[in-house]
């Protein structure tokens, strides 16, 4: 009977430890995902600003190049 009690206590403790580990893993994954998202958004914002700048300059260049047609 005592042995059975010990067995129940031990398996309960193992279950609690396993739960804690899962929580920790999930929390760590969520943290990494949040950091990844933040970085990815920063990268996209940077690319967006590069594209916008290039498109604006391309437009300006086009109008100047068109003006060369009458030379």
């Amino acid at each position, binding site marked *: 009977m005592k042995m059975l009690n010990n067995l129940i206590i031990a398996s309960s403790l193992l279950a609690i430890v396993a739960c804690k580990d899962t929580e920790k893993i999930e929390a760590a994954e969520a943290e990494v995902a949040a950091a990844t998202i933040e970085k990815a958004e920063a990268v996209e914002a940077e690319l967006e600003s590069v594209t916008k700048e290039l498109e604006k300059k391309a437009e300006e260049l086009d109008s100047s*190049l068109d003006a060369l047609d009458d030379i």
Partner: protein
Amino acid sequence: MNYLKILAVLAMVTLSGQMAQGQNFANQAKKIGKDQAQEMKAKVEKHADGMKEKGQQKVDEVMKKGQEGINEAKAKGQEKMASSNMAKPAQEKDMKFENKEGLTGAALGQARTKYAENKVAESSNKLSAMNSKAAIGQAKINAAKQRLENAKSLKGANALSTEDIAIKQAKIDEAQTKLNSFKGSISSGKTKLNAAKEKLNKFN
């Protein structure tokens, strides 16, 4: 006895005369009543028409105000949309990642990185296209320079004035300045793109 009979006949004649007169009065009164009733009815109908017209005016007025309110609200809404992300072109909206699969944790991080990598690849393609554009622009400027040089040697009526030459040269110079600035932006864009790639690779 005869005397009594005569009196009775006289009384009857008088009574019947009075009755006829009474009937006449009654008819007249009836007629006057009918006229007045018709007059009243006409007045009531006229009043009702007036009320109906006023009511309609009020309804129109309220509806007009309501429509004005709606138009104003619409205009304000559109103004707000124009100043917010909602009014941005689809191409820009597409920059935003939407987690439609309901991913979480590591899977979400990986999906997000993959999406950003696709954007980097798109930007890389755009930069290549811009490079080609710069090369075409340079060729156009060179051709214009050559045409101007040829025009400078023209003599007689076709000869260009000093002012004409200066105007054309200014156009070429302006185009060259803009092209150089464009090339500079392409170069800085490439540097930023490489930095973006590195940033993303650090997560993998």
